[in-house]
């Protein structure tokens, strides 16, 4: 039925016009290109290639749908034209449908096997999609077309390496090397990198002996000295040639005496056991003497020394640091705190200094003079103690506050001290005071970006987004599209966008929260796409080892904690939206009182809210009209964000489907994050995907058998299953019967099991809360008792401020009697008088 795909020869004039179209497209002269294309089409309206080019140009102008339609027309006209298929692939590629793009390229290549451009485009997509076998094939074809380029050889080796064929990869590199006449000059970086790359492949095969030989033979004069020396030391150590290894590590330490890994290497090369304290001590004290200003040789012994030895070494270290007034002293020390004995010894020492028990250091007076400053010892000791009492393993906030005030008194201009004071307020739960204090610290040095960032973060924690962006704007390009916030997005300032989103989530502004969290997800997507540039760039520059490292990093990109954090919050919002669809209607969302209104009232309120929203939007639109359209770096106009407030995101009709966009990568890349599993459960149980829900339960239970949230989720799973309106498919039921009952045996007396769990964890507020939730679930008549018991959790010694806030949420979720809520607030306020969460609210 399709018209016979007869090749349509163009006249010579048209042929040159067609070349013109292609040139115009490459040079982005789209209008000219379109005009020329139309000129050809007037003569021969059925010329597929020209229509395809037209589609490509239209796509570049932003009309993707039209472009696809046109490309299909072109394909119908010239089924056998590789140009048309290539264009089709390019369109899919720009729409990020890489699988379809690969198919189209392959078709184009079948029609025109000699085309290097198509081959190259295909190869790029294959490596991007991690189709290693396909990539090896493409690379082989490219190499055969042009054997004289070294990068083609290296590229084939990379493909084989990534596909797991290490032997082939090495052979490819060697085969090329054998064609070289003589050794390339030292300045040939491409060669130098290729040699080390080959070395890394040999080492990866586990042939350390040969890797060492190769390194000694081929990398003697390699410009990357550090890598060669580090590799050599490592190989020697692996091979058990301890003496030489020790020598190699000593040479490395002479170059960089602050690198812990070298010390560790040296220690194992010298066969000093961790338990042999004396030998270790001597080793480090030698280095400390050699390098009197160094830190590592003094700090590392604190890790392994014990008792009096520790005390003595810590005393020296602390006095040295505190005399110099080094602000990071506590940060350097706190890693020792999990060891209670060391923590106590340190506290004893520093409190001793505070009451004048410090010995003046031998060279202390000399140092003082040379610095010309007043002695920083006194305030530094106070500062250290404040940080000590502010740290979660040794917290006593009142003492911390006392010490920091004393420190500030002697150094009223210190940014660091005020910053710590702000952190103490934060731990009191006083978000507002913390933000104010941090803001004050910022004004002490308005040009310091660190404290600026910190102040912005504290404003966000205090839910003051306006003040935060105000701070940030002092360091952003404010003429960027979208102002400071737009620039923060351009610069991919992930921490800010995350904190901003979480702040909106706390305030119940779900649209804005979703907007920010979705931005995080797109930034990760951009990072994944950024690879595209490097598949060819790294080859051209010959930076192969860095490239391989990048590819592997990209493979686990979404393991990053920032992604998990954003994904968990986003999933939480979508679950909320599913449970309470009325949250999607804008301003109503910021309070629970939406439920209390009757429908007439609600309608009225909704209408009012809508009107307000429209008014606001109009005002903003007017404001925007004044400015001229922003352009990106290539001079193309930026796409207008049609949904700056995230309202459209909120109004999704399928929140759970949207949630899966976060849950899928989350569970794939961070399966060992229990919060991720728990977030997955909440979505799956609502989607009625019981096997998948069960899977998250099995996983969370394996990660932590006594996690309170998992405990609650197990019960909810059981309850949901027992109340199904339609039975599950028998095979699915069989799976559940077999697997769920290892978590909660069928014969279990639910109430008894829950009480047993409660008994085991009666002193942990979060566990008690979970048990109360379960009790409520299996016996709805216990509401009153449960709400009273929530109040009791406040009296538990181990209760944290976070636990208490969660308890309050629990009461609010359960729509508790205001009486209980007030009792709770009063009790919580008494225990955490500074915490803003329990301040008396106007209502």
């Amino acid at each position: 039925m399709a018209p016979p795909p007869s090749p349509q020869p163009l006249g010579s004039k048209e042929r040159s016009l067609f070349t013109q179209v292609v040139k115009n497209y490459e040079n982005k002269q789209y209008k000219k290109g379109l005009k020329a294309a139309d000129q050809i089409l007037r003569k021969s309206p059925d010329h597929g290639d020209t229509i395809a080019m037209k589609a490509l140009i239209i796509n570049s102008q932003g009309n993707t749908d039209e472009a696809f339609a046109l490309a299909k027309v072109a394909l119908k006209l010239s089924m056998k034209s590789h140009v048309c298929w290539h264009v089709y692939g390019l369109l899919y590629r720009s729409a990020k449908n890489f699988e379809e793009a690969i198919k189209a390229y392959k078709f184009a290549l079948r029609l025109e096997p000699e085309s290097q451009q198509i081959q190259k485009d295909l190869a790029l997509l294959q490596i991007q999609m991690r189709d290693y076998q396909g990539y090896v094939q493409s690379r082989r074809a490219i190499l055969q077309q042009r054997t004289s380029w070294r990068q083609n050889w290296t590229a084939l080796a990379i493909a084989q390496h990534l596909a797991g064929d290490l032997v082939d990869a090495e052979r490819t590199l060697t085969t090329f090397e054998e064609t070289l006449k003589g050794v390339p000059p030292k300045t040939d970086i491409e060669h130098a990198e290729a040699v080390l790359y080959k070395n890394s492949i040999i080492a990866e095969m586990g042939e350390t002996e040969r890797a060492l030989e190769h390194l000694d033979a081929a990398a003697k004069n390699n410009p990357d000295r550090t890598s060669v020396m580090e590799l050599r030391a490592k190989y020697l150590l692996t091979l058990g040639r301890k003496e030489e290894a020790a020598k190699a590590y000593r040479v490395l330490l002479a170059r960089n005496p602050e690198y812990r890994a070298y010390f560790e290497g040296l220690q194992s090369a010298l066969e000093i056991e961790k338990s042999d304290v004396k030998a270790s001590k001597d080793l480090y004290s030698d280095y400390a003497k050699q390098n009197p200003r160094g830190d590592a040789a003094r700090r590392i012994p604190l890790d392994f020394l014990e008792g009096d030895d520790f005390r003595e070494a810590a005393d020296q270290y602390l006095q040295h640091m505190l005399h110099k007034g080094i602000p990071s002293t506590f940060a350097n020390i706190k890693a020792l705190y999990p060891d209670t004995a060391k923590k106590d010894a340190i506290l004893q020492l520093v409190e001793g200094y505070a009451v004048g028990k410090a010995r003046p250091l031998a060279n202390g007076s000399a140092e003082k003079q040379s610095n010309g400053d007043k002695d920083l010892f006194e305030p530094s000791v106070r500062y250290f103690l404040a940080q000590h009492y502010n740290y979660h393993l040794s917290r006593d906030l009142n003492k911390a506050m006392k010490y920091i005030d004393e420190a500030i008194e002697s150094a009223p201009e210190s940014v660091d001290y005020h910053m710590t004071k702000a952190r103490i307020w934060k731990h009191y739960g006083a978000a507002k005071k913390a933000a104010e204090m941090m803001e004050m610290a910022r004004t002490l040095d308005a040009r310091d970006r660190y404290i600026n960032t910190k102040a912005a973060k504290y404003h966000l924690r205090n839910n003051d987004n306006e003040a935060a962006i105000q701070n940030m704007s002092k360091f952003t390009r404010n003429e960027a599209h979208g102002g400071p916030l737009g620039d923060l997005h351009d610069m991919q300032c992930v921490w800010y966008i995350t904190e901003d989103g979480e702040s909106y989530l706390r305030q119940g502004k779900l649209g804005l929260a979703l907007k920010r969290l979705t931005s995080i997800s797109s930034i990760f997507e951009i990072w994944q796409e950024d690879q595209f540039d490097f598949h060819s760039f790294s080859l051209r520059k010959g930076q192969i080892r860095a490239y391989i490292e990048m590819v592997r990093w990209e493979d686990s990109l979404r393991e990053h904690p920032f992604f998990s954090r954003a994904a968990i919050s986003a999933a939480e919002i979508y679950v909320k939206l599913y449970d309470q669809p009325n949250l999607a209607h804008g301003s109503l969302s910021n309070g629970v009182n939406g439920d209390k209104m009757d429908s007439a009232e609600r309608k009225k309120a909704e209408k009012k809210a809508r009107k307000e929203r429209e008014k606001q939007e109009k005002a903003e639109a007017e404001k925007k009209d004044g400015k001229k359209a922003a352009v990106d770096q290539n001079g193309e106009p930026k796409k207008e964000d049609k949904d700056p407030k995230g309202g459209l995101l909120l109004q999704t009709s399928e929140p759970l489907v949207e949630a899966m966009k976060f849950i899928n990568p989350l569970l794939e890349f961070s399966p060992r994050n229990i919060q991720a599993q728990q977030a997955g459960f909440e979505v799956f149980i609502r989607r009625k995907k019981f096997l998948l829900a069960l899977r998250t339960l099995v996983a969370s239970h394996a990660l932590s058998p006594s996690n309170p949230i998992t405990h609650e989720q197990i019960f909810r799973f059981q309850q949901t299953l027992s109340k199904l309106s339609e039975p599950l498919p028998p095979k699915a039921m069989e799976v559940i019967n077999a697997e769920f009952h290892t978590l909660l045996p069928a014969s279990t007396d639910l109430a008894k099991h829950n009480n047993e769990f409660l008994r085991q964890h009666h002193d942990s507020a979060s566990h008690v809360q979970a048990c109360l939730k379960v009790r409520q679930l299996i016996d709805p008549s216990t509401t009153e008792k449960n709400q009273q018991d929530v109040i009791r959790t406040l009296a538990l010694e181990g209760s944290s401020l976070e636990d208490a806030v969660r308890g309050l949420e629990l009461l609010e979720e359960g729509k508790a009697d205001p009486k209980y809520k007030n009792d709770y607030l009063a009790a919580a306020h008494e225990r955490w008088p500074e915490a803003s969460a329990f301040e008396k609210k106007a209502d």
Partner: protein
Amino acid sequence: MAEPQPSSVQEGMDPEGPPAPASAEDRKAAAAMSSLETRGGDEEAEAKKSNNKQIDQEELGKAISRLELADKAGKVAAGETTKKEKEKEEREKRAKVKVDQGDVSLLVEELDLNKVKATELLKAHEGDAVRAMRAFVTAKA
């Protein structure tokens, strides 16, 4: 970065150095049409470079055929053939497993898998849906 940058400074990478422009240009180049493409500069430079290194084209030609032979020989030597054969056997064994389409749909529905993955999972468990799903549910994180 305490002070505002002078207007001449570009955000991001140095234009001479690493990725941005070179790669952007590359991207555009990749978008160019195949058969009509003539990008002389790069190739000439490469050609010159290879001349400097005095690479013998003939030598390279031999090298490539050597590589192909060696690839085959190497695989035999490295015992990869046996490995591959085992894989092949495994594949063939799996291919023989009969899979009930109803079970495939069940897995697709219950486990959010696509058809290909669901079929694979079933075949890996001899077509036993319950066993396949149990394995999926208890898979180690």
